[in-house]
C-alpha cells in the first residue's frame, strides 16, 4: 500500500476516534437533555432555559407543569410537589408569550398525561402576537426536532463541551438550579428600591391615554387560544396566578397613557378564565404591601423569591382566589390602588 494512503487512513482513524469520543461525551452528559433525562441517581441541573426547555419537556418524567415567564423562574416547584402530591416541571418562556407557552404545553402532552397546570400569567403577554416565536433565528432548530440528523451543531460544539457541560457539573456539585430551583436566577441579584429605581425613569410629561388599535384583536386571539387549551383538557386542573408587578409598572402604565389598556386586558381575561369549571384564578396584583415596597424588586416587574413563595403559599391556602362573583370588585379596588400609587405612593421614591 502507498505510504501516504496509510497515513491518510491513520489520519481518518484518529479523527474518527476523536469524533466518536466527542459524541459519547456529549451524549453521556447531554446538557440540553436532548437524548435522555439524567441517569439514575443524578439530579437534573436546569440553568439554560431556552436551550434546555424542549429536551426537558420531551424526556423528563412529570405529571404537572409550572408555566410562565421570567417572573415564574424563581418559584420553588418542590413546594407544589409536596402540597399537591405531583411531580412538576417548569415550562418557561422569557416573554411569557401565550402562543409559545401553549406550544410547549402541546409538546408536553404528546408523551405525558398532565394533572395540573400552574400558570403564572403575565397580562401584558396577552397583548402580544399570538404566533409562535420559538423558531426565531437565534434559537437552534435541532432543539425542537426529534431527529438526530440535525444535531451536529449540538454534539460538535465547543461551547457545549467547554462551557455547558462543565457548568452543569459544577452546578450539580454546588446544588445550584437543581430540584425545585430550576432556572432560578435570583442568586447575586440586588432586590432593593435603589436597584429597582435604576431601571425606571418617569417622563416629565404625562402622556394622554391613547388607543392601541391591535389591543382588542390580540387579547381576543390569545384568550381564545387559552380557552381552546382549557376546554380541550377537562381532566387537567388549571391554576392561574396573576403576579404582583411593582408600583413602578403601574405608574409607568399611567404616565405612558396605557393604564386603561391594562385594565381592559384584566377585564377581558378574568371572566374568560373563570368561566371554565377546571380553572382557578389567584390574583396578587393588589397586594399593596408587596407592590408598594420596592425593596421586593430588582426592576419594574421582577420580584424576589420570597414573593414567589408568598404566592404559592397563598394559593395553597386558597387565599387571593377570585371567582365569578368577586372579580369586578377586585378590579375596582385595583383601580383605587392604581390611583393611590400614581398620585401618592410613587412620590415616596420619585420626588
Amino acid at each position, binding site marked *: 500500500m502507498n505510504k501516504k494512503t496509510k497515513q491518510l487512513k491513520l489520519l481518518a482513524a484518529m479523527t474518527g*476516534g476523536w469524533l466518536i469520543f466527542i459524541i459519547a461525551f456529549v451524549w453521556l452528559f447531554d446538557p440540553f437533555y436532548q437524548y435522555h433525562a439524567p441517569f439514575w441517581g443524578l439530579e437534573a441541573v436546569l440553568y439554560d432555559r431556552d436551550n434546555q426547555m424542549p429536551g426537558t419537556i420531551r424526556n423528563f418524567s412529570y405529571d404537572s407543569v409550572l408555566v410562565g415567564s421570567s417572573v415564574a423562574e424563581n418559584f420553588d416547584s418542590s413546594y407544589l410537589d409536596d402540597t399537591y402530591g405531583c411531580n412538576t416541571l417548569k415550562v418557561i418562556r422569557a416573554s411569557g408569550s401565550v402562543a409559545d407557552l401553549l406550544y410547549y404545553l402541546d409538546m408536553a402532552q404528546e408523551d405525558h398525561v398532565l394533572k395540573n397546570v400552574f400558570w403564572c400569567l403575565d397580562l401584558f403577554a396577552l397583548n402580544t402576537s399570538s404566533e409562535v416565536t420559538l423558531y426565531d433565528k437565534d434559537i437552534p432548530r435541532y432543539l425542537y426536532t426529534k431527529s438526530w440528523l440535525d444535531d451536529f451543531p449540538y454534539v460538535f460544539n*465547543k461551547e457545549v463541551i467547554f462551557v455547558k457541560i462543565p457548568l452543569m457539573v459544577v452546578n450539580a456539585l454546588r446544588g445550584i438550579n437543581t430540584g425545585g430551583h430550576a432556572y432560578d436566577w435570583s442568586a447575586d441579584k440586588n432586590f432593593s428600591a435603589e436597584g429597582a429605581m435604576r431601571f425606571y425613569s418617569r417622563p416629565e410629561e404625562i402622556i394622554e391615554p391613547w388607543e392601541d388599535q391591535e389591543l382588542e384583536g390580540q387579547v381576543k386571539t390569545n384568550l381564545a387560544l387559552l380557552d381552546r387549551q382549557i376546554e380541550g383538557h377537562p381532566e387537567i386542573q388549571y391554576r392561574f396566578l396573576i403576579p404582583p408587578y411593582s408600583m413602578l409598572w403601574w405608574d409607568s402604565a399611567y404616565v405612558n397613557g396605557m393604564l386603561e389598556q391594562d385594565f381592559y386586558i384584566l377585564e377581558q381575561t378574568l371572566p374568560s378564565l373563570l368561566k371554565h369549571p377546571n380553572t382557578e384564578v389567584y390574583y396578587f396584583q393588589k397586594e399593596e404591601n408587596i407592590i408598594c415596597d420596592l425593596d421586593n424588586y430588582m426592576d419594574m416587574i421582577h420580584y424576589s423569591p420570597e414573593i414567589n413563595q408568598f404566592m404559592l403559599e397563598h394559593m395553597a391556602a386558597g387565599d387571593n382566589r377570585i371567582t365569578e362573583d368577586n372579580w369586578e370588585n377586585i378590579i375596582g379596588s385595583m383601580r383605587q390602588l392604581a390611583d393611590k400609587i400614581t398620585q401618592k405612593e410613587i412620590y415616596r421614591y420619585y420626588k
Partner: protein
Amino acid sequence: MLFNSVIFITVFLPAALFGWYTLQKLRNPVWARLFLTGMSLVFYGYYNISYLWVLLASLCWNYMLSAALQTGAAPNVRKSLLAIGITGNLGMLFYFKYFNFFLENCNFFLHTDIRLEEIALPLGISFFSFQQISYLIERYHKRAKHYHFLDYSCFISFFPQLVAGPIVLHNEFLPQLVDRKNRKLNRDLFYDGVCLFILGLSKKVLLADVLAVIVNAEYENILYLDIPSAWITIICYMLELYFDFSGYCDMARGLGLMFGFSLPENFNSPLTADSVRDFWRRWHMTLSRFLSTYIYIPLGGNRKGKARQCVNLLIVFLVSGLWHGANWTFIVWGVMHGLACVWDSLFPHLRFRFQWMNRLATGIFVTLSFSIFRSDSLQSAWLLWKKLFAGGMNGMFLGLCNVLQIPETYIIQKALKYLFPQALNPFFVMCLVILLFISILLIRGKKAHQWLEDNGQKPSAIFCLATLFTWSLISLSQVSTFLYFNF
C-alpha cells in the same frame, strides 16, 4: 458557503470530491468538468443567488472577447478588443465596488446631493475580474490559446480560488485540467491536500478568529484605548489578517490538491520581511505578480530611470490600495506602501546593521499601515494613531485582555472567579501572552507545506492534525467570515 463551515466540510466537499473522481472514470472528461463547474457555481450562489448572474455575465463577456481575439485578426482590431475587454471588466468592478464611493466623493467635494444606490458587492469580484483581465492580456499577446468554454468556466469558477484567490493564471490551471494523468486520484496529492486544508482551517478558526475577538471589540472602542491597548490591538489585527488570509490560502491550496490541482503559493513568511519591498514579495504574492506583470512592467518598471520607477511604484500601490476597497483608508494605505517602496528603491543601502532591526522596523511600519487599512474611516484611523502615540495610560489594557473569554478557558475563569478573584486579570494577561507567543512562533516557523513535508508522515504529527481538525470542527458553531472576501 465558507470553507470553515459545517455544510462545506461535511456535505459539499465530500459530494464534490466523490462526483469529480467518479465522473473522471468516464471516457469523456466533459462530464467531470461540467460537474465541477456546476458545484463551483453552487458554492458561489450559496452566499447569494443574485451574485451568480454577475459571475456568469463576466464569464461569458470575457469568453466572447477571447473568441474574438483570434490570432488572425488585424492588430488594431485586437487592440480595440482588448481595450473593450479591460474596460468591461473594470467597468463592472467600478459599478459594484466603487460607484457609491465615487458618488460620495462627488457629493462631498462638489457639494452635490446625488442619491447613493444600494449595490451589493458580489464576493470575490476583484479576484475573478483580475484573473480574466490577465487572461485577456495573455490572449492579446498570443501567449494563451482560446479554450473550450467548459474548460474556461471550470478555470474561472474553480471554487477553491474563486472568492479570495490566489489569483491563478490560465497556464497554471488549464494544463493541469486537460492533463490525462490528473484524471486519476493521486493519493499523495490528496493526503497533502487534506493536511494543508486542516492546517489552514486551524489557522483561521483557532487563531485568526480568537484574535478577531480582541480586534473587533477594541476597534469598536477606539476612543477609550490607551497606548498599550492600542498597540496590542493593531498587532493583533496584523496577526489576525495574516492567519485569516494565509489560512484561507492554505485551505484553497489544500482543496486544489484534493482535486488534483496545484495552485500557486500566496504567502512566504511575510512578517519576517526585512523591507517593505521584501514584504510585497512575500505577501499576497499572486496580487503582486499581477500588478507587476500588467501594470508596473508595462509602465516601464525600472527601465526608464529612477524618477519614472518611483512614479510607477506609486501608481502600482495606488491601484493596490483601490483594489482592496472603496475607501480613503485603502488609498492612504496603498500610498504609504508605495512611498515606503520608493524609499527602499532610492536608498537601498540605508539600512540597519543588524538584520533583526530591519525586520522589526518593517514589522512596525506594516503593522501601523494596516491599522489604517482596518479602520472604518480616516478619522477613526487618525484617532487610533493618536492613541498609539499619545493615548496615555488608563488601564484599558486589562479590559482588552478580559475580552479574551474563550470557551476553552471557561472552567479556569470560573474557578478563579470564585477561588482567587484577584488572579483573574493576570490569567487573562497570560492568555494574551500565550496567544501572541504562539502566533510569533508560527510566523517565524516553517511554512505549512514545509512542515508537512518534514513531519507529515510521523504518527505524532498525524495525531496533531486529527486533533486540530476536531478542535476546529467543534469551533465552527461560531461562524465567521473571511476578511479578504470583500476585497
